[in-house]
């Protein structure tokens, strides 16, 4: 079955728009470790704020694991706290 979006002739552009997918689901990463600074820092850009889901495409269960891990990493000075 096709979704309404695919049927719409003018919807070509939308159809080709890259769909955001959860990196952790795609790569089958099931646990996110607070010690994995290299991975975590991909989700704390410039001002060290946690990247929101709507931008990163991370699904909600993974976002929760991710933000828990980031908070732990910050706690032990592996990652910076957000600067104002």
């Amino acid at each position, binding site marked *: *079955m096709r*979704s*309404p*979006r695919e049927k719409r002739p003018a919807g070509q552009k939308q159809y080709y728009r890259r769909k955001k997918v959860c990196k952790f*689901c795609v790569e089958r990463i*099931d*646990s996110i470790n*607070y*010690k994995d600074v290299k991975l975590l820092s991909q989700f704390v850009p410039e001002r060290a704020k946690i990247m929101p889901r709507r931008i990163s495409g991370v*699904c*909600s*269960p*993974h976002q*929760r*694991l991710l933000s828990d891990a980031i908070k*732990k990493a*910050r*706690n*032990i*000075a*592996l*990652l*910076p*706290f957000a600067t104002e």
Partner: protein
Amino acid sequence: MRNYEIMFIVNPNAVEDEIDKINAQLEAVITSGGGQIQKIEKMGKRRLAYEVDRLREGYYVLFATAANGDIVKECERRLRVMDAVIKYITVRVDDDVRRLEKIRKYRQKRAARRGSGAAASASGQSIEEAMQ
């Protein structure tokens, strides 16, 4: 018994001997309390993400243990009073198991949704529903 990780940062000016002494103390607390040491990893010096006690780098040590709450509390108390230790964190590692199950279910649900024709209307599923 549960699995815990204890990570702490020692003043980078501490000599190897001091670090070994700290590790031996913690090890004694854990084993005398009936816990097990799975790993002691001297991760070494690394730059701190922010200043701690006016220090820019620290010596990281990681303990992986099977222990109970009392043992962990005693380890934390010891770490707090050691002058050379500038920061510590204890993390329970086995409640991951429960969360992994949630993710597996969420993934299955999503896959099922994608497979059915109702994809468009089901996309608004709440986070709470997915997390149950």
